[in-house]
């Protein structure tokens, strides 16, 4: 049992934005444990994406090929990756923590009698073994995880935990891996992908965004934050629960299922800073947070912050801006 296998995600030849981060994690772990690194790609377009991955310093890129893998299904991906893992016996199998990975990877690891250590934000090596760090309680608590027994061990890497620009260049061979699959083994039938609303507001173009979260308590209070946005000349955005409640349209949602923004300034009001929100705004130049809880994870990424009750702080801020 040896080697680090990074299972990367791609769509129509385009790598997922988190794919190279998990490859960087694999390269780092491989160097620390003295083990070779491999990548795997599957789905329509995998060959094209493999060329991009082959430009890094890893041993090989496996392209899993079968007509039934063209479109993603959890059954197809689990069966195909099982065959690759059985053929190559890697010690570690790493994934980016994407929605697709959440959908199939726990099933794959369970079939090996293992747990997927999901949402990994860091790691360290102790006595030759990797200890993984993952978040709990929506990012408020971290925990150290040890994998017991023999590999393969499975882990999914959270966005931003490893840097893609840390990857060292090289040239890997690309190998096709033939998969045996039968149509009857695939039980779910995916239909067309669609987007619900046309996006009338383009948050990505706004230089200043003021974003409101569940701390606002009621729809009637939203205007307080709107006034702050107006005072700053910014766009109003929100965390998911606000849009779920219909208090603001979904096109104003920031996060992994909403928009990804990187304005000059992002001001988060009454937002806790769950990872699914952070991935949508971490790239902002200056991050400001207003929250009554000094331990809220949003302060982790904030450049400036005010600990206090937003119902007092926001009006005070509007006043101060007018001076």
């Amino acid at each position: 049992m040896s080697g680090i296998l990074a299972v990367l995600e791609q769509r129509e030849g385009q790598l997922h934005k988190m794919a190279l981060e998990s490859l960087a994690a694999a390269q780092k772990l491989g160097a620390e444990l003295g083990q070779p690194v491999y990548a795997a790609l599957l789905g329509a377009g995998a060959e094209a994406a493999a060329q991009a991955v082959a430009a890094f310093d890893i041993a090989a890129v496996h392209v899993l090929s079968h007509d039934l893998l063209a479109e993603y299904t959890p059954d197809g991906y689990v069966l195909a990756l099982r065959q690759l893992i059985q053929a190559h016996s890697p010690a570690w199998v790493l994934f980016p923590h994407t929605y697709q990975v959440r959908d199939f990877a726990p099933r794959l690891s369970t079939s090996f009698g293992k747990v997927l250590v999901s949402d990994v934000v860091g790691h360290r090596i102790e006595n030759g073994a990797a200890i993984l760090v993952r978040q709990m309680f929506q990012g408020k608590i971290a925990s150290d995880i040890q994998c017991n027994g023999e590999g393969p061990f499975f882990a999914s890497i959270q966005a931003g935990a490893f840097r893609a620009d840390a990857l060292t260049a090289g040239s890997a061979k690309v190998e096709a891996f033939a998969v045996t699959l039968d149509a009857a083994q695939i039980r779910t039938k995916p239909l067309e992908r669609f987007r619900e609303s046309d996006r009338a507001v383009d948050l990505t173009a706004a230089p200043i965004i003021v974003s409101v979260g569940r701390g606002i308590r009621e729809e009637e209070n939203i205007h307080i934050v709107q006034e702050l946005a107006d005072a700053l000349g910014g766009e109003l955005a929100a965390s998911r629960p606000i849009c779920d409640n219909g208090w603001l349209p979904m096109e104003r949602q920031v996060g992994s299922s909403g928009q990804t923004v990187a304005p000059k300034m992002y001001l988060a009001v009454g937002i806790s800073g769950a990872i699914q929100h952070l991935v949508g705004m971490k790239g902002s130049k200056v991050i400001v947070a207003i929250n009554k809880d000094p331990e809220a994870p949003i302060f982790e990424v904030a450049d400036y912050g005010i600990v206090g009750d937003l119902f007092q702080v926001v009006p005070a801020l509007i006043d101060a801006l007018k001076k």
Partner: protein
Amino acid sequence: MKIVVAIKQVPARDSLLKVNAEASWIEDSDLSFEINEPDAYALEAGLQLKEKEGGEVVVLCAGPDRATQTIREALAKGADRAIHIEVEETSAGDPLVLSRLLAKALEAEQPDLVLTGLQSDDLGYGQTGVILAELLGLPHATLIMNVETEGAGIRVRRELEDGWFQNVDMPLPALLTIQSGATKLRYATLMGIKKAKTKEIKLLTADELGGVSEPSITVSRLYVPPKTKQSQIFDDAPKEAAAKLVEKLRFEARVI
């Protein structure tokens, strides 16, 4: 349609969390608890399906004694009966070990549909449902916003990243993990609360479900994440804090 909904009791949302002295779990003696948020939506989805298709909704919960409160609330909202697997919670667990117990209880029920939340607010593995599907040999789909029957099977709407969705057709029996926020949650009625008192809660122990298996991971330590970024945080009175912040934004960050 026979539907089982897996629900978990977790610390209430705005709890101030402290790690316990052993660093094995949080200090939970003073906390209040509630149903895990996505599980409330899973229960709602189950109840709505039952209203349309007929059948039965059974809630399944593994947890300590106090979980009875959350189970009763689910019964008051309209679930027909409950299964409570009594387990003590004094440390962070291995989701596969827990799933094996849940799977054993589900095997005895043979439901047409199993619903779970997509992620627990405390452990946050985001995978108990998918593990269960593998253990039970059921097809599954995750991050589900909507469920409808379609012929002999179901059509579900999955949430994808960046505002995309996808419908998926699948046969029954099946397992779905439900995303929060897709519908309005119902409240328990007075009548419902009264009725809940007479509904069955079947108690099971881990031993009756094949016992606790060997964990494949060990959670060795819990801690508050160390601060990595140099933030300037103001915690003075609102007026002073606001003035300081505006000054910084104008003259240091130069963003306004």
